[in-house]
């Protein structure tokens, strides 16, 4: 198993915590490795949601996953939001704080969407500065996720994967590789999903996301409304064979089925992992990116 560069824990196979499942979880305490929460739903720290979260926290590791960091936005950082996020992260003792490589609005307006980044030097510099500030402020590793996108821009001067790799190195942040999002964007923009994955520094990947989507024929929408498709599982296996053990999480947000169904879907990831016979061997064969030896040497140098 290859460590990520900060030795952040491989939490195993988790499920995104959703309010429709609170009662089931509190009654049954199912054998889930960990839960990821949408940070914004708990920032007010009141009501039944927060009560349920506190009870669940007593038994499971919790990772906070936000949707409002708006890292690419040109507005100043919202420190009121960050203050609340920090308080929640501290309470949950989350091993890292994750959000998305996107922006959600501008001029104080929030579209509540994960809007696509313009992949330019200007954006890169802006995003890197903000990540560094946020990481210092939160006192935790920030881990950012690639999003599904439906449009590309002529003003972009680099590919998404080049942007992500450079962003992660320059800002010294972690990455949450959502393989469904890679699949969706690859379909929508016609790029090779494996080329994307090969370009991502494996030692910076702290977590994986898996989810279902909706194929409209002409494009795919990232709906999180269904089972994970075969192509995404294959991509997960491919990515996992490069990185080795990383916390893996299944997201299901629309038409949410009973908890057992969601959990069973998450556990399929373990089956795919188990089909990787020799991670190191597969890793050496990876067409580009760092070899395991390079990664381990680098890790040893930095943390000896």
């Amino acid at each position: 198993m290859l460590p990520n560069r900060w030795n952040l824990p491989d939490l195993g196979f988790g499920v995104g915590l959703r309010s429709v499942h609170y009662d089931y979880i509190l009654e049954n305490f199912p054998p889930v490795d960990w839960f990821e929460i949408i940070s914004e739903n708990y920032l007010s720290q009141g009501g039944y949601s927060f009560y349920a979260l506190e009870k669940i926290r007593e038994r499971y590791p919790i990772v906070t996953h936000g949707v409002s960091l708006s890292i690419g936005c040109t507005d100043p950082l919202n420190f009121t939001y960050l203050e609340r996020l920090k308080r929640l992260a501290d309470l949950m003792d989350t091993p890292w704080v994750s959000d998305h490589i996107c922006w959600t609005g501008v001029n104080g307006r929030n579209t509540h969407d994960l809007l696509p980044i313009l992949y330019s030097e200007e954006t890169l510099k802006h995003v890197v500065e903000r990540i560094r500030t946020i990481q210092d402020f939160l006192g935790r590793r920030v881990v950012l996720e690639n999003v599904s996108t439906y449009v590309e821009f002529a003003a972009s001067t680099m590919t998404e994967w080049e942007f992500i790799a450079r962003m992660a190195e320059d800002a010294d942040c972690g990455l949450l590789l959502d393989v469904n999002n890679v699949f969706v964007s690859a379909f929508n923009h016609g790029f090779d999903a494996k080329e994307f994955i090969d370009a991502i520094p494996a030692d910076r990947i702290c977590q994986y996301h898996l989810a279902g989507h909706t194929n409209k024929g002409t494009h795919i929408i990232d709906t999180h409304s269904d089972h994970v498709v075969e192509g995404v599982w294959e991509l997960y296996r491919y990515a996992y064979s490069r990185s080795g053990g990383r916390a893996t999480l299944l997201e299901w947000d629309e038409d949410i089925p009973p908890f057992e169904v969601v959990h069973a879907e998450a556990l399929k990831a373990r089956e795919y992992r188990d089909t990787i016979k020799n991670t190191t061997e597969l890793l050496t064969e990876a067409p580009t990116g760092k070899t395991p030896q390079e990664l381990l040497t680098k890790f040893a140098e930095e943390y000896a």
Partner: protein
Amino acid sequence: MPKSTTEQASTIVHLDEFQRWMVAVVSHFGTDEEAWNSEGATTELSHERALGNVLPSQTLTEYERIGIYRRMYFLRMRDALLIDVPSIRFALGQSLFEEVVEQYFTRYPSRSYTLNDSGLMFPTFVRESSLPNKEFLAELAELELAISRVIEAPETPPLTAEQIAAVPADAWENVCFVPIAALELHAFTYPVHDYFCAFEEKSSEDETLLAISGEPSYNYVCIHRSDYHTEHTALTEAEYELLTALTASVPLGIAFEAVQKHFGENPADAEKAQQHITSRFQEWMMSGLFAAIRT
């Protein structure tokens, strides 16, 4: 289809103008044509520059690709408002409700980090609108928002039976109460609580509209949460006044004295009313409306 180099060169856009343009287009509720040509969008990027920046795919045009974000924006905001003020849809009907969604978020776009705040300005918007029965609708929205606030309020432990029993008999006259955080009292000029109860009675499959009574008729409501279960209960005017006084820490004796005016001239009726409100007060104490008693 890839853009030509000259087309690309003429479309260099900067981050801030790109972002303001995209938000203007995504949050515009008209057609694609109207959104791209809207004042908010063209102030940032002319239609031509914007078109030069957005790339088509093999299967979708520039307009269709941005249109995905536009459609999702509408659905997301509509659903967020529906969560905050579900009964409003039954008062307006689906089609008018969707029109109202567009007008509302155009006038009051979200400025919060959370979608849970989506309905906050809705009563204000309704009062400013030309909707029929707008005062009723505004109060109905206020009731629904109040219920949401109580659901999300922090938990404060309620008075225990032991704490109540520990108050000396001769001290009750002067005790003051501290309410729990998850408690709100409202006086509405329209029968919005009656309406909301009828809405809650409907089965989830029943899509028929609920008629609004345009006539004013006071509704007094207590919304509180006990053991993470939220209740909204109708109050009489006297009960509302008493409970309002108690939650404002008015001493019990004075609060009771102040509501005597509601009990009528007839001594027998007044006696009955007094007994009734006393038993309601005991129910409030036992059902966890108060967090502390100060003697």
